[in-house]
């Protein structure tokens, strides 16, 4: 680059205030950027409004910055100086491009940009004279490296009498106007999505035209939106959703997110100015800090750690009786009948192995929750059942266990004969994994006592959280462990015999029932395709089990062949299920359906509107995988007398479904010291706080609550 191109800026930098004799020109240049002061007219009338601006011509691979420069960089700044009475307004920024440098994403302009501002000419500007405009421009230009630069520019526009021709201005002005974002023809809203992501939803007409166009949202401000997040857009016929991640300084609920939605390729995109109200979400905010919303009920339960641990222990004990855990334990008790006749020492060790399995699982679960919590996710008990994939795999697992109980196949009996030492070790492993299984299947059953303890735990530091979880695990493991340690109890166990085989076969049915229930959950979560895949998967598992069993006495070749086919069937079941469920999981429609008109779908807005009207409201937070919830709904909430009492008193029944992740509901649960469903709230007309009903409902209890009887 020639030295002469540097001259104006060198002059500007080295000489400081420009000497009057060497007035800056309309143009200046650095090695990277040529700047030019442009106006929309060659002359002005007094009182005119024209456009004035700075045009930047940027060499290839370098860029300057938008209003929000993104992760790094600096907005171009222009300071105008005008005679008294004339003034210049804010810059109208053209639609920016995104410039990606590894993990850093910047918003700015490549090649060329014109930054225009409205200029108001003084009404008393002297006709026949000149309007002197000077501009001090500071910008940062970057490629791999960044160089801060500045220039001083000046322009004199003749002031002519009203009615006289002003002559054309710079053609760059009209070009710049074409690159401005226009007002969005669509309605924009921000809705909370999973974790600390939000969705910018545009709705209205002609959105289908956006299909197959690159879409990007540029936030005007640094902070609300993470710039580097790979935004994903989904276009439907009547709505477009762009997935965004909350940034380092998320907005508060009710604040306005402003920005530009760019449609089309970088540098050639059409921009649409959008603004939307930020929703109430708990982004990147530890649960402990979630403030209780005024008017929303009972303060957080004041539990101490010891009390929470005790509650968790009791909850764990009760979990043993839950329909999903009981069969697993009965199964293990069967094994114990055989063990009891061996040395008591061995039996005790099985008890320990089982307890270790339970505790390890709960520790793992606690670890996962701690990790998720550290990441700012709003989560709750049973959260893993919000993953359709997890539901599918547990369904497969329980089905296979059922097949084994039914005698379709038996695993391991041959291995047991190899040697007593090895058999014993395998047995302990079996006990350990029975513990793991018990812990896994227990999670959807939020037993009484447990809700409060877990709710407390997730608001605590990691160590306390772990303590509560381990205490819960200890409660779950305790009955079986005691059985292994209390010979007197063992002696009361019935004598082994043929009835055991019958019982074992009988116990397969709770397994099948649980599988059926899980498939139903899956249907609600992931839609009919997932169910088809899951059912086919079950058939394949059945096939694999059968092949495995029939081939066991067969010759080597046949056995290997059957084993290969069985493995293939299992792989297809798992992979196919994973793919279909994974694909349909997020998009499945799960409208509440019209199975019952007794309730309305819960939303925070609906609740606050009803409360403002003084309408009594009963809120039921539930999930399809929550057995306690389903039992309560059947026993108490579908009860005719209860519904009659609702009708009599004009109570509106709202149902909040937590089957899939919903941060808004998780937040309400947290406000009530809970981290899982069920949660039942009754808002009496005009009451400041809701009455929190117990987790086990009876019709009388609900009717009593509605009648205002004390709880």
């Amino acid at each position, binding site marked *: 680059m020639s030295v002469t191109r540097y001259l104006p800026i060198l002059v500007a930098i080295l000489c400081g205030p420009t000497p009057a004799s060497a007035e800056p020109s309309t143009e200046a240049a650095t090695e990277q950027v040529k700047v030019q002061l442009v106006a929309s007219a060659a002359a002005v009338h007094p009182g005119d409004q024209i456009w004035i601006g700075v045009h930047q011509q940027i060499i290839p691979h370098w860029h300057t910055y938008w209003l929000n420069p993104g992760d790094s960089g600096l907005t171009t700044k222009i300071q105008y100086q005008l005679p008294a009475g004339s003034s210049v307004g804010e810059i109208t920024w053209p639609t920016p491009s995104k410039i990606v440098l590894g*993990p850093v994403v910047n918003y700015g302009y490549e090649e060329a940009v014109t930054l225009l501002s409205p200029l108001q000419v003084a009404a008393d500007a002297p006709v026949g004279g000149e309007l002197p405009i000077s501009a001090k421009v500071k910008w940062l230009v970057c490629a791999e490296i960044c160089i801060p630069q500045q220039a001083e520019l000046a322009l004199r526009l003749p002031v002519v009498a009203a009615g006289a021709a002003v002559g054309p201005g710079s053609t760059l002005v009209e070009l710049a106007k074409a690159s401005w974002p226009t007002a969005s023809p669509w309605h924009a809203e921000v809705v909370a999505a999973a974790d600390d992501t939000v969705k910018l939803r545009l709705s209205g007409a002609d959105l289908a035209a956006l299909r197959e166009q690159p879409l990007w949202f540029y936030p005007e401000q640094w902070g609300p939106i993470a710039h580097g997040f790979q935004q994903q857009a989904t276009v439907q016929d009547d709505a477009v959703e762009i997935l965004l991640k909350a940034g380092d300084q998320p907005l508060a609920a009710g604040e306005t997110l402003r920005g530009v939605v760019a449609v089309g390729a970088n540098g050639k995109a059409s921009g649409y100015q959008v603004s939307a109200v930020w929703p109430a979400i708990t982004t990147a905010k530890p649960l402990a800090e979630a403030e209780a919303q005024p008017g929303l009920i009972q303060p957080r339960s004041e539990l101490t750690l010891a009390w929470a641990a005790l509650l968790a222990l009791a909850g764990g004990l009760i979990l043993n009786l839950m329909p999903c855990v009981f069969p697993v334990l009965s199964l293990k008790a069967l094994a114990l009948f055989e063990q009891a006749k061996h040395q008591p020492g061995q039996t005790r060790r099985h008890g320990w192995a089982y307890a270790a399995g339970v505790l390890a699982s709960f520790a793992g679960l606690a670890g996962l929750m701690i990790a998720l919590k550290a990441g700012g996710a709003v989560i709750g008990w049973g959260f893993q059942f919000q993953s359709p994939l997890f539901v599918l795999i547990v369904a497969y697992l329980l089905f296979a266990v059922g097949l084994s109980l039914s005698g379709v196949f038996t695993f391991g009996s041959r291995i047991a004969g190899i040697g007593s030492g090895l058999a014993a070790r395998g047995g302990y492993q079996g006990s350990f994994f029975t513990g793991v299984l018990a812990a896994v299947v227990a999670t959807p059953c939020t037993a009484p006592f447990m809700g409060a303890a877990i709710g407390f735990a997730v608001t605590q530091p990691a160590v306390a959280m772990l303590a509560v979880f381990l205490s819960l695990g200890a409660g779950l493991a305790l009955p079986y462990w005691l059985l292994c340690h209390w010979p007197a109890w063992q002696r009361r166990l019935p004598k082994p015999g043929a009835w055991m085989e019958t019982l074992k076969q009988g116990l397969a049915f709770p397994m099948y029932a649980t599988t059926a229930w899980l498939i139903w959950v899956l249907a609600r979560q992931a839609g009919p395709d997932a169910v088809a895949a899951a059912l086919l998967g079950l058939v394949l598992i059945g096939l694999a089990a059968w092949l495995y069993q029939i081939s066991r006495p067969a010759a080597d070749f046949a056995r290997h062949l059957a084993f290969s086919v069985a493995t293939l069937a299992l792989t297809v079941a798992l992979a196919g299920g994973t793919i279909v469920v994974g694909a349909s999981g997020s998009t499945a429609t799960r409208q509440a359906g019209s199975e019952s008109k007794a309730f309305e779908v819960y939303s925070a807005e609906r609740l606050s509107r009803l409360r403002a009207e003084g309408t009594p409201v009963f809120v039921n937070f539930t999930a399809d995988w929550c057995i306690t919830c389903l039992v309560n709904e059947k026993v108490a909430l579908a009860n005719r007398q209860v519904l009659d009492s609702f009708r009599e008193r004009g109570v509106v029944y709202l149902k909040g479904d937590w089957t899939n992740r919903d941060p808004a509901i998780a937040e309400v649960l947290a406000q009530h010291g809970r981290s899982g469903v069920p949660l039942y709230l009754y808002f009496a007309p005009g009451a400041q706080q809701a009455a929190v009903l117990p987790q086990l409902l009876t019709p009388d209890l609900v009717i009593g609550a509605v009648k205002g009887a004390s709880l």
Partner: protein
Amino acid sequence: MLSQRLFGVFALSFTLLAPLAVRAEPVVGQPAPAFTATAAEGGALSLADLRGKTVILEWTNHECPFVQKHYESGNIPKLQKQAASQGIVWLQVISSGTGKQGFVDAATAKKLNQERGATPANTILDANGSIGKLYGATNTPQLFIIDPKGLLLYKGGIDSIASADKDDIAGAENYIDSALKELAAGKPISKTVTKPYGCTVKYAS
């Protein structure tokens, strides 16, 4: 009776869930990401070994005009001395990739600091950018303050006026100076997240 292979399926299900727990970018109030790195003063430096001490991480690139603004004006060297007098460990982090702007070897890093009157406790050489990406560092300068328990106290810029002009330092709110004073007084840091400004961190990729 129960197959261990079946439980392998269960183990798989946990494996499938595991990615949920993997998250980048540090959050104020949460544990700062742990790292072990090569240090200019020799040997490996591990954040875990600094438990019990307050640690400041300063992303830097000596060729970046914004960094030069704060070194040549004496602003950062002064803050480094201030931190040292409070027993705070100040670590420079250089995430410039090999051959990129700001990339230096240990000897050059030490020499540069000597020339600039800078006295960080140590300089972390992060040419592969792994620590920078772990912290989501985007700018030079950009600062992170970690408390003695390893929790992140502050992430953001050095002061409130985004410019490369030394004259702006006097008029700006110096976030690090404020934080150091608040720490010395045993008070919580009032501004915990600010907008960093400066050059883009020159990652290798």
